[in-house]
C-alpha cells in the first residue's frame, strides 16, 4: 500500500521515521536486551520460549510413547516415567499453551488495534521475565532429577508430605505459582491495552475477532488462575507449616483440591484454545477473501464459551462420588458449552461456502483444526455424560479426547497462525510445499497417534500407567500410537526446516502477502519498532478492504521525541488523551528477580519468604519512583508549547528564506 502523507501536518516533524526510530528504539547490546519493553520483541521472546518448551514437551511425549510402545518395557522406570508424564503435562499446559498464546496476543494485539505498544510496557516485560524464571526453575529441577512427579494435577493426599517427600512437589507449587503470576500480568496488560489503546474509530464491535478472543482469554485468566494459586499455596502450607486443608485426619478434605483445581483447570482448557479460534477466524477470512460470516454470533460465542467454561469443573469429578443430582446439572452444562462452538463452526463453514478460498498452508491448518477439533468436541460431549464418563474417565479414551481437543484447538490453529503471520513477523515467506508436507504429516500423525487410544480406553487401559502386561492385548494399538507420535514429530520437524530455510533465504514477503483485512497488513513486514508511522484510524471491521482505505485519516499531533501514544475511550474508541509510555529499563527484570526470590526461595527455606517480600517492596518502590518513568518536559495541554514551537520554526524558515 502506497503511503499517503497526511494533508495536515500540525507538527513540522510528524511522521519522521528517523525520530520515531530513535524514540521507540532500544539500546544496543546485552544491556539493551535486558531492558527491552517493546511489545513485539517481548511477544517474540514469549513465542520463541513457548515453542522451545513445546519441542521439549514433545520430546518427553516421544519418550513416554516409546516406553508404552510394547508391554513390559523398561526404557523408563516407574519413577522416571512419573516425572516424564508430569513434565509433559505441566510443560504443555503451563509453559507452552498459555504463554505462547499470550505471546501471540502481545505481539499482534497492538498491531491489530493500531497502537504503538502495549498500555503497560514494563508490566509486559515483567511478565515475560517471571515466565522465563518459572520455566528455568522447572527444567533445572528436571535436570537435577527432582522434577514434580505426581501429575500436572498434583492431587493430594498423594502430593502431601507424608506420601511424597520429594522436593519435586514443592517445585511444582513454586513453578505453578510463579507462572500464574506471569500469566496474570500478561492478561492484565492485554486487557488494558485492548480497552484503552485502540485506534480511533475501532469501537468494540469493530475489533478483529482475534483481539476479541484474546480479550476473552485474558478475562478468563484473571478469573481462573488466582484459584489455582490459592489452592497450590494451601498445598504448600500443608507441606511446609502443617496446615490441614487437604488432610482428612485434620478435618480437611482432599476433594477441596479437586474442586479448586478444576475450577481453574476447566477454564484453562478454554483459555488455551480460544485464541486458536480467533486465529482461525482471521485465517479463514483472509484466505477466503471474505469477512467472517456472522461477526456478532462469533464474538458472542467466544464470550459465551468463556462464561460457561466456569460452570463445568465437576465433570472432571464424576467418579469421586458426588451427589447424583449435582452431577446431572454439570452434564447439561457440559453439553450446553458445545453450542457456541457449533455456532462458530457453521459461521466458518458459511464463510467458506461464500468465499474465494486459496488453499494455502495456513488454510490447510485451519481446515485440519475443524476436523480434529470436531472429533475432540464430539468425544467431549460423550464425556460430559455421567454414566459413560464413569467408564472412560482416567483412561486412554480421555487421553485421546483431550489430545484431539488440544492438538486441534491449540496446535493446529497455532500453526495456521504461524504460517499466516510469519511473513509479517520476519518479512519472509515460508515454503508452501514444505508447509503442506508438514501439515499432512501432522494431520496423519494426530490420527495415528490418538485414534487408537480411544480403543485402548475401551479396552480398559488406564492413564498414567508406566507399563502393562502383554496379556492385556494393548500392545499393537500402543505401537501404532507410538508410530503416530513419531509421524506427528516428523511434521513438526519439517516445519522447523521450513522456518530455518525461510529465515536464511526466504522470499521477501512485502507488506501484505495475503491481501489481509486488518491493520497489521498496512505496515511494513517486519513492522518498524514504532509499528505505524502514523497511528491509523478505522471505520469498519475490515479497514484494509474499505474502498477508500487510502484516504482514511491518520493520527497526527503526537509528540515523537517521547513515547507518546493515543489513548481512546473504552467503548467507542474516541480519542481521549495522549499517554506517555516508559522506555527501556532494567526495572522489570529486577522486579521479576525479586518476585522469584520468595517463590523459588521457599524451596530452600521459609525465611526466604519475608526476605523476598522485602526485596519485592523495594523493587516496586523503585518501579514507581519518579525518574523511573520518563518525565514530561512540558506540562499538560501541550498545545501552547507546540504552537510556540511551530511559530519559532516558521520564523526560522522565514529568516532562512530572507537571508
Amino acid at each position, binding site marked *: 500500500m502506497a503511503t499517503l502523507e497526511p494533508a495536515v501536518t500540525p507538527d513540522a516533524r510528524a511522521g519522521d521515521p528517523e525520530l520515531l526510530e530513535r524514540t521507540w528504539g532500544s539500546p544496543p547490546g546485552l544491556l539493551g536486551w535486558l531492558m527491552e519493553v517493546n511489545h513485539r520483541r517481548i511477544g517474540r521472546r514469549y513465542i520463541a520460549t513457548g515453542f522451545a518448551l513445546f519441542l521439549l514437551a514433545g520430546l518427553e511425549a516421544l519418550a513416554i510413547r516409546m516406553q508404552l510402545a510394547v508391554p513390559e518395557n523398561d526404557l523408563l522406570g516407574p519413577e522416571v516415567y512419573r516425572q516424564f508424564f508430569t513434565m509433559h503435562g505441566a510443560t504443555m499446559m503451563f509453559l507452552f499453551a498459555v504463554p505462547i498464546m499470550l505471546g501471540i496476543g502481545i505481539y499482534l494485539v497492538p498491531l491489530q488495534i493500531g497502537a504503538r505498544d502495549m498500555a503497560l510496557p514494563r508490566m509486559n516485560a515483567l511478565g515475560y521475565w517471571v515466565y522465563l524464571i518459572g520455566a528455568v526453575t522447572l527444567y533445572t529441577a528436571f535436570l537435577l532429577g527432582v522434577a514434580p512427579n505426581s501429575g500436572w494435577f498434583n492431587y493430594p493426599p498423594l502430593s502431601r508430605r507424608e*506420601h511424597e517427600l520429594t522436593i519435586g512437589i514443592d517445585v511444582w507449587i513454586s513453578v505453578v505459582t510463579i507462572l500464574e503470576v506471569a500469566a496474570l500480568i500478561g492478561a492484565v496488560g492485554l486487557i488494558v491495552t485492548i480497552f484503552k489503546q485502540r485506534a480511533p474509530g475501532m469501537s468494540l464491535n469493530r475489533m478483529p475477532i482475534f483481539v476479541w478472543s484474546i480479550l476473552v482469554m485474558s478475562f478468563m485468566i484473571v478469573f481462573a488462575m488466582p484459584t489455582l494459586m490459592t489452592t497450590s499455596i494451601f498445598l504448600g502450607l500443608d507441606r511446609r507449616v502443617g496446615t490441614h486443608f487437604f488432610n482428612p485426619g485434620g478435618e480437611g478434605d482432599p476433594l477441596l483440591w479437586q474442586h479448586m483445581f478444576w475450577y481453574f483447570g476447566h477454564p484453562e482448557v478454554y483459555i488455551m484454545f480460544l485464541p486458536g479460534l480467533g486465529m482461525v477466524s482471521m485465517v479463514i477470512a483472509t484466505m477466503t477473501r471474505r469477512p467472517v460470516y456472522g461477526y456478532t454470533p462469533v464474538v458472542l460465542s467466544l464470550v459465551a464459551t468463556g462464561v460457561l467454561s466456569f460452570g463445568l469443573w465437576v465433570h472432571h469429578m464424576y467418579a469421586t462420588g458426588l451427589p447424583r443430582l449435582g452431577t446431572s446439572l454439570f452434564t447439561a452444562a457440559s453439553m450446553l458449552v458445545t453450542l457456541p462452538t457449533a455456532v462458530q463452526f457453521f459461521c466458518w463453514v458459511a464463510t467458506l461456502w461464500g468465499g474465494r478460498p486459496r488453499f494455502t498452508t495456513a488454510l490447510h491448518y485451519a481446515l485440519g483444526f475443524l476436523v480434529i477439533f470436531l472429533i475432540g468436541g464430539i468425544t467431549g460431549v460423550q464425556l460430559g455424560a455421567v454414566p459413560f464418563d464413569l467408564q472412560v474417565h482416567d483412561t486412554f479414551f480421555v487421553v485421546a479426547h483431550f489430545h484431539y481437543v488440544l492438538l486441534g484447538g491449540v496446535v493446529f490453529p497455532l500453526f495456521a497462525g504461524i504460517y499466516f503471520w510469519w511473513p509479517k513477523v520476519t518479512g519472509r515467506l515460508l515454503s508452501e510445499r514444505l508447509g503442506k508436507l508438514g501439515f499432512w504429516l501432522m494431520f496423519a500423525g494426530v490420527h495415528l497417534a490418538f485414534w487408537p487410544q480411544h480403543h485402548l480406553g475401551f479396552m480398559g487401559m488406564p492413564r498414567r500407567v508406566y507399563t502393562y502386561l502383554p496379556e492385556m492385548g494393548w500392545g499393537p494399538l500402543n505401537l501404532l500410537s507410538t508410530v503416530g507420535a513419531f509421524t506427528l514429530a516428523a511434521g513438526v520437524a519439517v516445519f522447523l526446516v521450513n522456518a530455518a530455510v525461510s529465515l536464511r533465504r526466504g522470499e521477501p514477503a512485502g507488506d501484505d502477502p495475503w491481501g489481509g483485512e486488518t491493520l497489521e497488513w498496512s505496515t511494513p513486514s517486519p513492522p518498524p519498532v514504532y509499528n505505524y508511522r502514523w497511528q491509523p484510524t478505522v471505520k469498519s471491521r475490515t479497514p484494509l478492504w474499505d474502498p477508500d482505505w487510502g484516504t482514511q485519516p491518520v493520527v497526527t499531533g503526537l509528540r515523537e521525541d517521547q513515547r507518546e501514544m493515543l489513548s481512546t475511550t473504552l467503548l467507542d474508541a474516541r480519542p481521549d488523551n495522549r499517554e506517555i509510555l516508559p522506555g527501556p529499563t532494567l526495572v522489570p527484570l529486577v522486579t521479576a528477580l525479586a518476585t522469584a526470590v520468595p517463590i523459588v526461595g521457599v524451596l530452600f527455606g521459609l525465611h526466604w519468604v519475608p526476605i523476598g517480600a522485602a526485596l519485592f517492596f523495594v523493587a516496586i518502590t523503585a518501579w514507581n519512583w519518579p525518574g523511573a518513568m520518563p518525565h514530561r518536559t512540558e506540562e499538560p495541554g501541550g498545545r501552547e508549547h507546540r504552537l510556540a514551537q511551530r511559530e519559532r520554526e516558521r520564523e526560522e524558515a522565514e529568516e532562512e528564506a530572507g537571508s
Partner: protein
Amino acid sequence: MRPLSAARPRLPLAACALLAGGCVGTGVQDVLAPRGPQAERIADWFWISFALAVAVFVAFVAVLAYGLLRARRLGERNELPPAHGRNLVLWGGLVVPTAILLVLLVLSAYTDRRISRLGRGAGPEPLTIEVVGEQFWWQVRYLDPAHPHREFTTANEIHVPTGRPVRLLLESRDVIHSFWVPNLHGKTDLIPGRTNDLVFQVDEPGVYRGQCAEFCGTQHARMALLVEALPPAEFAAWWERQLRPPAPPTDSVRVKGRDVFMKNGCGVCHSIRGTPARGRVAPDLTHFASRRTIAAGTLPNTRGHLGGWISDPQGIKPGNRMPAVPLKGEELQALLDYLHSLK
C-alpha cells in the same frame, strides 16, 4: 500336577487366564463387552452416542467439503446469499446440535437413573463388601453386620455371587485410588476420609479383571484386582471355606516354612488366621494359595513367580512396600511350600 500346564498348546492363554481372569478372547478389561447390567446400559448409551457422532461427523465434513468444492467451482463469482448463511448457522450451529444434545442428555439421565437404582429398591438385599485401597493393593473385607463372626478379610480378589447386587464400600488408607472393573461397571474413587459406594451386579459366572484408575503413586500401573463371580451356591460354599483358617502344616517342610515366615517378621505386615501373624498393613494371606495372582495382579500365583517375588519384591514392582528378606535356598523352598499350602 499344576492345572496350568495341563493344556500345553494353550499355555499363553493359560497365563492370560491367570492374570486376566477367565475372560480370554472377549477383551481382558473391556468396556464394550459388558457382563453386568450397568456396564451393559453404559455400553448401550455409548453405541447410540457413537451412531450420532458418526452422523454428525459425516454430515459436517460433507457440508464443509461441498462448500469448498462449490467455492472452487464458482471462483471469483462466489457469493453466499445472507439468507443461506443464516440458515447454515441457525440449523447447523444451533437447532440440530441442540436436538442431538437433548437426546443425549435425556438418554444420559435415563441411563444414570437406571444404573444408580440397582440394589436400592425391591429385589434381593445387596451383598456388602468393604474395599480399602492401599499403595498398591486392595484390602477386601466381607461384611455381615448381623453375624460379625462370619466376617473375614482377603485381598486383591473379590468373589461375588451372580445375579445379586453387590455393594462395595470404598475407602482408602493413604491416597486416592479408583475402583474399576470395566466389564462390570464404571469407576468410583476411593478417597481418604470418605466412604463411597458402588453397586454392581454380575450376570455370568467368570473372572473379570480391574485395576486402579486414579494415579496413586509409583506402582499405580501394577495395582490390579480380579472379580470372580460364582453361582450363589458355590459362592456360599466359598464363603464357608474362607471362614475356616487353613489347616496347620503337618509335614516337616511346611512346618519349617511356617517357622521361616514367623521368624523373618512376615507376620508384622501380613496376617494368617490361626497363627501369630496378625499384621494389617499388607494383604491377608490366610487363603493365599487359592488366589490367582500375587502382587495385586502383577504375576500369576505360581511357585516360580512367588519365589522371585519374595526374593526381590523391589525388582518386580519397584516402589512397593514389601522389603526383600534374605533367605537361604532351602528356607525359600520351605516358605514357598508353606504359602502354597494355605488353601
